């Protein structure tokens, strides 16, 4: 269900996803969400959290690659993949 309802989340850049997630957490904590919508908004927050985690994992993998390269080889020979 979450995959279908929140398919747009998978295209959000990190900054947008974390911004929306923070606003959802704030609204839930302040009790400003109607009871009937509360669970849908929570689930949207979960989808956003998964998106942020996925993007962080990808970024982490890239950082690891650079670190290994820097440790094993002379610098400047490996192109940095930032796409």
């Amino acid at each position, binding site marked *: 269900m979450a995959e279908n309802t929140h398919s747009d989340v998978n295209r959000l850049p990190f900054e947008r996803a974390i911004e929306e997630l923070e606003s959802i957490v704030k609204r*839930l*904590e302040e009790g400003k969400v*109607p009871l009937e919508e509360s*669970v849908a908004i929570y689930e949207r927050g979960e989808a956003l959290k998964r998106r942020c985690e996925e993007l962080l994992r990808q970024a982490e993998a890239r950082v690891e690659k650079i670190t290994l390269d820097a440790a094993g080889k002379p610098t400047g020979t490996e192109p940095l993949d930032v796409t």
Partner: protein
Amino acid sequence: MSTLLITHLACLEHLTPAGHPERPDRLRAIERALAHERFPSLVRVEAPAASLETIALCHPMSYITAIRDATPKEGLLGLDADTTLSPGSFEAALRAAGGAVHAVDEVMAGRAANAFVATRPPGHHTETARPMGFCLFNNAAIAARHAQKKHGIERAAVVDFDVHHGNGSQDIFWSDRTVMYGSTHQMPLYPGTGAASERGEHNTVVNAPLRPGDGGEEFRAAFETVVLPRLRDFRPDLIVISAGFDAHMRDPLANLNLVEGDFDWVTRKLMEVADASAGGRVVSVLEGGYDLQGLSNSVAAHVAALMQAR
């Protein structure tokens, strides 16, 4: 001794917008489940209307009359994004509070072992002077205060296993050292209150929040390690249960995974505490539960457990 089932047809006349989860069919589903042959000895009683003075044990009279006067002659009036008044709402709300009060009278007088009050609108979100979350008057809170005022008991406990935190009950009893309010509920979720750090002015508020996705194991652990020990120590003279069944795995408004057996378990555990300090006195009042199958099966398990009273 018998278990009472207290309800009233007027509670079907509190109408909500089309598609709203808190709907009259909830009571019809419960009625069908309890019509089963497992429940022949259940004593059925009509809920009387509570007097405004009794409701005023928890809410200012100005709030009560404002709700009465706002009740529309036709159509629906929205009080907030969730909560509506229809022409039959005030009468239904009086019966919901009155059913809980009548249950207290019967149980305190020893004419029944315990009671389940199947009425709507529910109550536990209603704060001292604020309707919210489908609720108009705080039925369970009124029942607890009524037991103290009319029957002279010293300590009452309101135990709330609805999946949403009972912010209204917590608000009403926040400064009251004679009433313990204990709750398990999903966090984060509506209404946003219910952190374990919220303890009341006299440490008589006990919150045991659960995480989305938690099931029977975590629910039982929260009761075993947090709510039940505090309840035993408090030694209530009466236990009022805010019995919401929306922590059921089928429920559309939350993400917990309880099954019927968990509601049977918690009911028996609360009855054990009531046996130890309250002469077995338990009054259970319906709160939420929005999947008709999950609701009716869970109520059946809950009431069947209540009927096992010694």
